[in-house]
């Protein structure tokens, strides 16, 4: 197991290096620079700025410097937000985005799996149709429209939740719901189809022939086998929710990391783009690793390479 994780970490570093390089070069190819604005800067000032941030050096020197800095977990200063480093931005914004994301993932998984199970157990009856209508709506309605709907009905019309901002737990519910709606719908469909597949298996008939009740069969025999595809989806889902939250953060006025990510691209704020990309990449790679480890726990047939045989 330790050997397996070590090997995976090595690959992660390799992928990270490739992501960093690709981002670095694509960013430079994009026209414009951090100091291009409506007001033309005097050439002397621009030269000074470039020198200050090291942009006057040849690209390979900049590239090397950047790699060295990343290894030391220093993403450098922001080009736009004076006196703030990228590390500051991440440290401020990430906890908020993380909390929002986790809440959304929790809602998506809990409700999605529940809806999927109900739909599968009541296959082709009204609970199934209801759950699947909810799922189709969830998949086809974009999160920003869902957000506006929630704000309009639950906050403005009914006044149950605050409209926006990030102050208390009540403030977190609407954005988390809006963020969770699409993945929840997707998980519901995924759970339903994989439940139906498992329910058609012979071993469910075996379980029934032992005289187990349908509740026990569902809990002990069906769900565990049906959850594997859902676990697979968890890796990309985590990344998607964390990165995808910027629209929701905008709508609800949440001071998260997503907002920085979008504005930094428009600003050509090189260090922020790089820093946030690297940060998100690490999150994604770690979540994929966790998913792979979770596989081995859920399904004993999946042996993690390097694991001991017969364990």
């Amino acid at each position, binding site marked *: 197991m330790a050997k397996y994780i070590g090997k995976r970490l090595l690959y992660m570093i390799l992928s990270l290096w490739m992501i960093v390089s690709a981002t670095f070069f694509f960013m430079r190819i994009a026209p414009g620079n951090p100091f291009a604005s409506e007001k033309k800067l005097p050439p002397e000032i621009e030269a000074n700025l470039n020198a200050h941030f090291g942009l006057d050096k040849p690209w390979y020197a900049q590239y090397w410097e950047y790699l060295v800095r990343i290894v030391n977990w220093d993403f450098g200063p922001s080009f736009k937000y004076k006196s703030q480093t990228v590390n500051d931005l991440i440290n401020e914004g990430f906890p908020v985005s993380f909390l929002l994301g986790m809440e959304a993932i929790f809602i998506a998984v809990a409700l999605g799996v529940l809806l999927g199970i109900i739909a599968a157990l009541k296959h082709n009856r009204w609970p199934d149709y209801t759950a699947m209508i909810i799922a189709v709506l969830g998949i086809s309605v974009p999160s920003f429209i869902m957000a506006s709907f929630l704000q309009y009905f639950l906050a403005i019309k009914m006044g149950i939740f605050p409209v926006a901002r990030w102050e208390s737990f009540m403030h977190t519910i609407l954005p988390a719901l809006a963020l969770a709606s699409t993945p929840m719908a997707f998980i519901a469909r995924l759970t339903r189809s994989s439940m139906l597949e498992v329910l058609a298996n012979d*071993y469910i008939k075996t379980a029934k022939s*032992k005289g187990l009740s349908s509740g026990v069969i569902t809990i002990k025999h069906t769900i565990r086998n049906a959850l594997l595809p859902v676990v697979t989806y968890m890796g990309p889902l985590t990344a998607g929710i964390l990165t995808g939250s910027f629209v929701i953060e905008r709508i609800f006025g949440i001071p998260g990391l997503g907002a920085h990510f979008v504005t930094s691209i428009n600003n050509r704020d090189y260090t922020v783009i790089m820093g946030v990309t690297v940060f998100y990449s690490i999150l994604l790679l770690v979540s994929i690793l966790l998913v792979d480890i979770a596989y081995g726990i859920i399904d004993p047939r999946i042996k993690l390479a390097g694991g001991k045989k017969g364990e």
Partner: protein
Amino acid sequence: MEKLLEVKNLEVSFQTYGGTVKAVRGVSFDLHKGETLAIVGESGSGKSVTSQSIMKLIPMPPGQISGGQILLNGDDIVPKTEKQMEKIRGKEISMIFQDPMTSLNPTMKIGNQITEGLIKHQNMSKQDAKNRAIELLRLVGIPMPEKRVNQYPHEFSGGMRQRAMIAIALAANPKLLIADEPTTALDVTIQAQILELMKDLQSKMDTSIIFITHDLGVVANVADRVAVMYAGQIVEMGTVDEIFYDPRHPYTWGLLASMPSVDSDDSAELAAIPGTPPDLTNPPKGDAFAARNSYALAIDFEEEPPMFQISETHFAKTWLLHPDAPKVEPPEAVKKRMRQLSSTFEKPVLVKEGK
């Protein structure tokens, strides 16, 4: 001998988009304590549906027991609810399925799959159940059961899994074991071992077995009595000797003729029954086998044949046994094995309806 199971005029149908499929059309048989009844027939003859109906394991809906009775120790189980059935399944009746590769839960330890039934039916503690599971694994011939009990199905070979399946089925000492083609998915040497094991366990535990198969070689090996099914009906039923040495129904002749034997000639082609079974959405008029039957009489296309009794235990559903029927000779391959059995009545007797 005491009757354990009596099936009377069982009818099972399935609602499909194409119409109602009458999978089982009036099947009656009984089973004594400690006896093995083999049900043979080709695919789609209704043998699996019959056996799964006995445990009420057919999916309902679309399936439905549309008529008849299933008496277990004199108690009709057809009207029983799911909750009442849970007390019968595994405890009174158990089942072994065809494919041991798919009939065990891949993410659950073998031991837990055995103890589940024990904990449910015999109120055993977890530890007692586990000890019993080890004992059962040893009983079905699995080496190192203390280690095996903690393993997952994918760590077992096919034959081992079927042994584990048998251990699961026998865990709560059921009175009736239904084996639905338990050896079909196994290779021949393993088949022989599994059959040997089942016979051995049957004599130890005094279980009755319903053995479903399409392999007549297996039938000869394990069964006391045989029921031949075709198109959802039993067309011939008798002791093993009666079915193998004195078959009366043309379909049974066809089955026996299509079985290769040791002394059959290399050059001779294996006989086959021509055609395919009828569509049970609209069962044909008259005898369902008539269209494929080279011995079919004119009346076979008009009226369903009644059951005739040839001996105390031997029944066949064919017009050929009617006193007015022409005398016909069975195919050469069957004739070779025919023998005069002492128990045979002088003349076939028409079985009155309602029997």
